[in-house]
């Protein structure tokens, strides 16, 4: 056997499963590094430290998620939308962003928020029902959650149009050129607002990366209800590039997102990334997936777990050992305890504050209703 043949035989090949041959992958489900002519360059400079910190992020947000689930079950949260299975899609894309890039999440991007530096209490606060969001998007360039499916795609596009109007694309200055990333799900792709966002973004060359986490389900509906063809191809119809990446492969997600953000920043307009992944849990704690999907499907996706994949890779390459993994788990324990304590301390605001932020400027009705409410409350206190 020639040397070349040996090398070829040893070279791992992507294992794309039902993601199909267009799916970009850099790590197989077994954690083997496969090379890709276009995307290797984006991960070449990642140090072992970087990769370990990727791993840490993955583990911490999975813990965050588990804690959210538990808190809901214990009645401390009203609802919890789990990101289980989508950790790599979220951390990989989130870590690809520069600080001055801007993020428009849906309601499930706890992981992206975390890597942007958001206080993890932020999303707990929302699902606990003490606010409808309540954070300042400018602090971490991470917008408020949007619950109405697809609406944020237009906000992201308009924001990106503003970035361009500011002259912050295509200058070549990395401190200046700015991209916007917009998260949405496979189901959201059907909403008129998402298509309109595609039209506007293409028409105005808006620097926005549409990042679709295709987790195969929109509550009980499989992605085949929304589209006949792979979702990344939707972009074709609007005249901009679309790519499918293995969303359970943090390296590929990181690389592809970096690539697409660069394209957007350069002034070429929008790009669509479809991160092919899977919602391992229920849609939310209010959902019962046994009604509509078979457990064999879930079992199959367990073999593609995003965390195990990176772990195998790190271990195999000698970049991390048991003590590291153990340390991360311990950190996660502490993190979870903190989260839980923080969540329990999130207090409901007094009733009269309801009127404080309906409007930015003075509003006579707010004042009158607040005063009436306080008087009404006082009447009970008097009565007692």
């Amino acid at each position, binding site marked *: 056997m020639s040397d070349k043949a040996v090398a070829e035989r040893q070279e791992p090949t992507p294992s794309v499963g039902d993601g199909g041959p267009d799916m970009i992958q850099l790590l197989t489900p077994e954690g083997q590094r496969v090379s890709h002519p276009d995307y290797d360059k984006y991960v070449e400079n990642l140090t072992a430290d970087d990769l370990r910190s990727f791993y840490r992020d993955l583990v911490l947000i999975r813990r965050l998620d588990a804690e959210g689930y538990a808190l809901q079950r214990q009645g401390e949260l*009203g*609802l919890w939308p789990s990101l289980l299975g989508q950790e790599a899609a979220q951390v990989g894309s989130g870590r690809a962003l520069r600080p001055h890039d801007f993020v428009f999440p849906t*309601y499930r991007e706890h992981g992206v928020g975390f890597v942007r530096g958001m206080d993890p209490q932020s999303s707990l606060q*929302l*699902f*606990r*029902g*003490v*606010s*409808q969001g309540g954070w300042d998007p400018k602090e971490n360039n991470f917008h408020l959650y949007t*619950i*109405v*499916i697809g609406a944020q795609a237009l906000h992201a596009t308009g924001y990106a149009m503003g970035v361009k109007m500011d002259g912050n694309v295509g200058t070549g200055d990395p401190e200046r050129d700015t991209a916007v990333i917009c998260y949405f799900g496979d*189901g*959201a792709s*059907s*909403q*008129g*607002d998402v298509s309109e966002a595609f039209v506007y973004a293409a028409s105005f060359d808006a620097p926005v990366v549409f990042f679709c986490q295709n987790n195969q389900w*929109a*509550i*009980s*509906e499989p992605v085949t*209800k*929304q589209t006949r063809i792979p979702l990344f191809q939707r972009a074709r119809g609007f005249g901009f590039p679309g790519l499918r990446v293995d969303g359970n492969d943090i390296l590929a997600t990181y690389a592809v997102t970096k690539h697409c953000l660069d394209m957007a920043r350069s002034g070429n307009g929008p790009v669509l990334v479809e991160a092919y992944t899977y919602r391992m849990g229920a849609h939310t704690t*209010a*959902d*019962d997936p046994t*009604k*509509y999907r078979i457990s064999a499907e879930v079992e199959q996706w367990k073999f593609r777990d995003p965390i195990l994949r990176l772990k195998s890779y790190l271990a195999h390459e000698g970049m991390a050992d048991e003590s590291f993994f153990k340390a991360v788990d311990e950190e996660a324990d502490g993190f979870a305890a903190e989260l839980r304590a923080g969540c329990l301390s999130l207090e*409901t*605001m007094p*009733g009269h504050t*309801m*009127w404080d932020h*309906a409007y930015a400027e003075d509003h006579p*009705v*707010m004042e009158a*209703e607040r005063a009436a*409410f306080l008087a*009404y409350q006082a009447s*009970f206190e008097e009565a007692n």
Partner: protein
Amino acid sequence: MATTKMTLAKSLTSGMRKAMERDPKVVLIGEDIGKLGGVFRITEGLQKDFGEDRVIDSPLAESGIVGTALGMALRGYRPVCEIQFDGFVYPAFDQIVSQVAKMHARGLGAVRVPMVIRIPFGGGIGSPEHHSESPEAYFAHTAGLRTVACSNPEDAHWMIQQAIECDDPVIFFEPKRRYHDKGEYDVDAAAAPRGLFEANVVRAGTDVTVVGYGPVVKTMLEAAAAAETEGTSLEVIDLRSLSPLPIDVITASVRKTGRLVCVQEASSFLGMSSEISAQVTEQCFYDLEAPVIRVAGANIPYPPSRMEDNFLPDLDRILDGVDRALAY
């Protein structure tokens, strides 16, 4: 007459089932209404029994649900749309207001649009934003639509069937926090106890009339029971139909009591209570001993769920309204 005990949710299911059995043109369309049976399980079991052509899981797009349903109606079907939550009806607003509501008039009567748009509405279930709204006024203000709200299992069972039989488009509001309330009635009765567009005096009284619809009807009845212990007799009216407004039932009561309290969860400004107040004052000017009192949601976006008790009209706020009416 054999009566059955059934929840409001299951009463809707049974009503739809009857309508589907009776008329093969009745089809359901909405998100997750198939295998899942809808997020509130109102369509549970129907796809299994009637097939995927009659219980249609739609792509995730509400304008699409209503717009394609309208197209089916033009083809001779009687579609029943499910909107998952109140706050998700707005993407379909254009189709509802400019197409569904106006098609019959546009065709000078040549086209009928027999369709129902079901919307679970109201708060009190501890949900995040957009899941607790009361958008009924938008629809009641829109000419060409009929808008109703059920409040109890027996009505739910009948009203959904009547709505499906109606040749005009009907916006059908379901009080989501009452889905699990139970009622006992004859599911196999031959006819509805009353017309779809009739109000119902659910408790007779003499001192103050209290009118509302949907989820607050139960609260009004509780308030009436509490008031009775203090010697005040409330007449409680369940509006049932918001448009057309069964105003005669209200004015007849007000002519007797001289006092009216209107209750709604929606923000007060331009809500149903405003219209009722305006009409009652017009028609009963010399009968009113007090101005019409409105007990309603605040004029702010629906608050976070842990604060919603401050927003929603409860028993105390209704009694406070009654006191205010009696203070004149």
